């Protein structure tokens, strides 16, 4: 299926999961990469009376003109790390959009025949890449691979910047995880 997103069009993606799965960080890396690539961006997290293990989600908007509402009811992209997030948000994705599903934790289908659905064994791929904690970057990779929303090099650069300094040991595994996800995303398009 032809997707709506590409390097030139405006888009938005909602990333959702449990707190601690790294959805906010993956969203920040995507926003940072898109900003460095010259796009307008916004990063809007859910915040509320949350607790550890509760839900965390973020909406990243990417556009060529200044962003109006950073709050989007029906996003064109969705990355879901867990089942409650998929059940809550999959029905809201715009027709023609992209849904990236974390197959390692979700054994169901989003039932959206009008969208491109990419199922990603994020845990396994992250383990192979060197860190099970990098599953968020596998998921981000799959989304970028399926949409071409921003060049891979820009994301890899943003990962390196995010972990610069005393967290530099996470760079290699995070980039490897991102690349493994890219492959899955690209394959889904074919």
């Amino acid at each position, binding site marked *: 299926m032809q997707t709506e997103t590409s390097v030139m069009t405006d888009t938005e993606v909602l990333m959702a999961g449990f707190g601690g799965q790294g959805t906010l960080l993956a969203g*920040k890396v995507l926003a940072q990469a898109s900003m460095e690539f010259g796009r307008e961006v916004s990063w809007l997290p859910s*915040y509320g009376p949350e607790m550890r293990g509760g839900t965390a989600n973020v909406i990243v908007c990417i556009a060529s003109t200044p962003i109006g509402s950073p709050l989007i009811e029906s996003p064109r992209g969705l990355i879901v790390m867990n089942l409650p997030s998929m059940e809550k948000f999959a029905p809201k994705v715009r027709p023609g959009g992209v849904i990236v599903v974390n197959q390692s934790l979700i054994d169901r289908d989003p039932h959206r025949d009008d969208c491109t659905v990419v199922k990603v064994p994020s845990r396994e791929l992250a383990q192979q890449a060197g860190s099970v904690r990098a599953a968020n970057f596998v998921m981000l990779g799959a989304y970028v691979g399926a949409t071409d929303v921003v060049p891979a090099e820009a994301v890899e650069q943003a990962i390196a910047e995010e972990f610069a300094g005393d967290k530099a040991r996470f760079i290699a595994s995070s980039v490897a995880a991102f690349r493994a996800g890219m492959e899955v995303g690209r394959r889904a398009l074919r």
Partner: protein
Amino acid sequence: MSKVLMKGNEALGEAAIRAGCVHFFGYPITPQTEVPEYLVKRLPEEGGAFVQAESEVAAIHMVYGAAGVGIKCMTSSSSPGISLMAEGMSYLAACELPCVVINIMRAGPGLGGILPAQSDYFQATRGHGHGDYQLIVLAPSSVQEAVDLMVLAFELAEKYRNPVMVCADGMIGQMMEPVEFPGVGRGEPFKANTWELTGAKGRARRIVNSLYLAPEELQQHNVHLKAKYDRIHRDEMRSELYRAEEPYDLLLVAFGTMARICKTAIDEVRKEGLRVALFRPITLNPFPTPACRAAMDAMGADGRVLTVEMNMGQMVHDVRYAAEGSRLVEFFGTAGGIVPSPDQVASEIRKRLTVAKGWGTGRCHDAQPDGVPCPFPDGVCETCGRS
């Protein structure tokens, strides 16, 4: 300087440093806690000092003391904390001390909730504490504008020797956007040397005090303050128009977060041929009344106004005041921390324009382009024939 991706709260903190802020006094409260969290780290690096007070009441009175000796300083809080600071703000305004107060609004009343709201409009513009005083109130609509207005806030505070409030909400505080900062490192201290208590050796004694027991003297002080507020109202009104260069039949009025959601809604309904524009006050006090009225007067006689706020109807009173009964000013709002989606605003616009165009006897729109579906599919339309 290149752009950096930053949370609104942190960007406000950095902007304060660029504006020359030396001291911060505050107390944590969601959703503004990243302001003190950022400054506790950054201010000492720039030779300043950060104090976590024992309460908001203490924090604002520490600002009173620091401003009294000529230190560029600020505090920051969210709605319930601002209420606690009300007394101090009255004293600061009475003594004409410059300072900046940030309010990252959350839903009220009472302890309320922690999600974004605009329900402190009355509080910000009509006074917080007792007595006849005013603050200058600036309302940013993006993270970049929050930075720009933070710098302006310190300039205006010094220019008018008056407290200035930067009034944003939880969404602007929590979201990240690319920002550019002016200058490098900490900005300049106050230039003036007219009120600071620095030791009276070799000059006349100065007193920072708001107690005037003689009524004539107190009246004179009030008249003096009024003259200053008049100057502020004459010279410092700021506002923005959006898509008003094209003709419009409906004028939205919104500020802060709500204004940018309205912009997206307007872009959406403009594609359907509906003619809508936005008036956005940037200064909530002074409210840009003449510009607001001019934006109304640019419409035909049946043009309407819709004020959209994240409260139950506060700024709408200023918009009605600007209209002076010349046309209908309606209101749409949400509360409790619920931020309306652009789709919700768009449907409110469609409802209003339907009525404005005489829905039931009317048509979808004069300027409906070929091939664009009728925006009013629920009614009876003369143009497209749908019912």
